[in-house]
């Protein structure tokens, strides 16, 4: 009886420790400056943001989720010779320790594919970013269509 109680107690304590570790890890990853480019229902658009890793360990963005679109994927824009531009899916993005990775126009972005409704300038929305260590983090984003965001 006593052994079982001790085991339950140990299990409970280890659960608290793991939860606390996850909490600490997630607070070390910050999502900043999130915005979505204006787009019409049925079209595709992109979510841009900055990921700040305040910890001494790398983390990895594995996926993104959103109710705004039928499919959500992490993509990157790439350049080829003769002013050719393209876009491709990426399976993960490593966020090195003590660094900021910018998801920005002409670069990395979360692609919102086939929007369920219009996204108009000024509207606010939300997406979830899934990290290997930090878990699921919400990103509140505002809809914009601003060239100046490109240079940030």
């Amino acid at each position: 009886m006593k052994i079982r109680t001790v085991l339950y107690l140990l299990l409970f304590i280890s659960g608290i420790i793991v939860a606390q570790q996850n909490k600490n890890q997630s607070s070390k990853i910050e999502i900043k400056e999130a915005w979505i480019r204006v787009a019409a229902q049925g079209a595709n658009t992109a979510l841009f943001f900055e990921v700040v890793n305040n910890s001494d360990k790398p983390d990895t963005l594995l996926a993104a989720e959103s109710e705004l679109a039928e499919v959500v994927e992490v993509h990157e824009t790439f350049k080829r010779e003769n002013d050719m531009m393209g876009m491709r899916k990426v399976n993960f993005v490593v966020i090195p320790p003590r660094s900021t990775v910018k998801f920005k126009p002409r670069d990395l972005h979360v692609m919102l594919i086939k929007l369920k409704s219009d996204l108009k300038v000024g509207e606010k929305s939300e997406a979830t970013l899934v990290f290997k260590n930090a878990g699921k983090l919400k990103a509140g984003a505002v809809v914009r269509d601003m060239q100046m965001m490109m240079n940030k």
Partner: protein
Amino acid sequence: MHKVLINCLLIFWLLTGCGNDFPVIEDLGSSNYQLTNQIEKEVQFPDFVKGKTVIAGYIFTNCPDICPLTTNNMRLIQERLKKENVKNVQFVSISFDPENDTPEVLKKFAEVRNLDLSNWTFLTGDKPVVDKLMKHVGVVAVPGDSTVFPSGKVTYYYIHTDRIQLIDGEGRIRKNYPGSSINVDEIIEDIKSL
């Protein structure tokens, strides 16, 4: 001997655009492409804009990054020209993905961005016509990566030329710019001095 040299220089001067900074890259003036605008009206391009300086952008609306940037840059150019009271300029956005970009899709693309369509036309058309036009203007668009929807439907994303063009009143392409990263000051000066 001197006369021959002078004649050669004169011919070279005429062929390269009368000595200014805008040599003729391609002459669309003698061609006409039947396209459809965002309100489903058929137009002959470039005939319907002849006599005006044209800022042409090439897009597909499923593009989430480069083409919206190109469109936004065209809006910035339009706003600057309005502010500086530069007139007789027409904006044209032509889709190289006519199978998806119907007039209705183009209309929505413009509406959700609150674009001023008083001197801006969005164009689509039959695929063979659009393909021929793209070849003529030097814009390449080939299917690249794709997304498979839960329904099994597949959408392709184009690898394409990132382009805005300056076309003169006679339908001649005079300068190419990178559409998504164009220097707005540069094209404004070019429009004024064309």
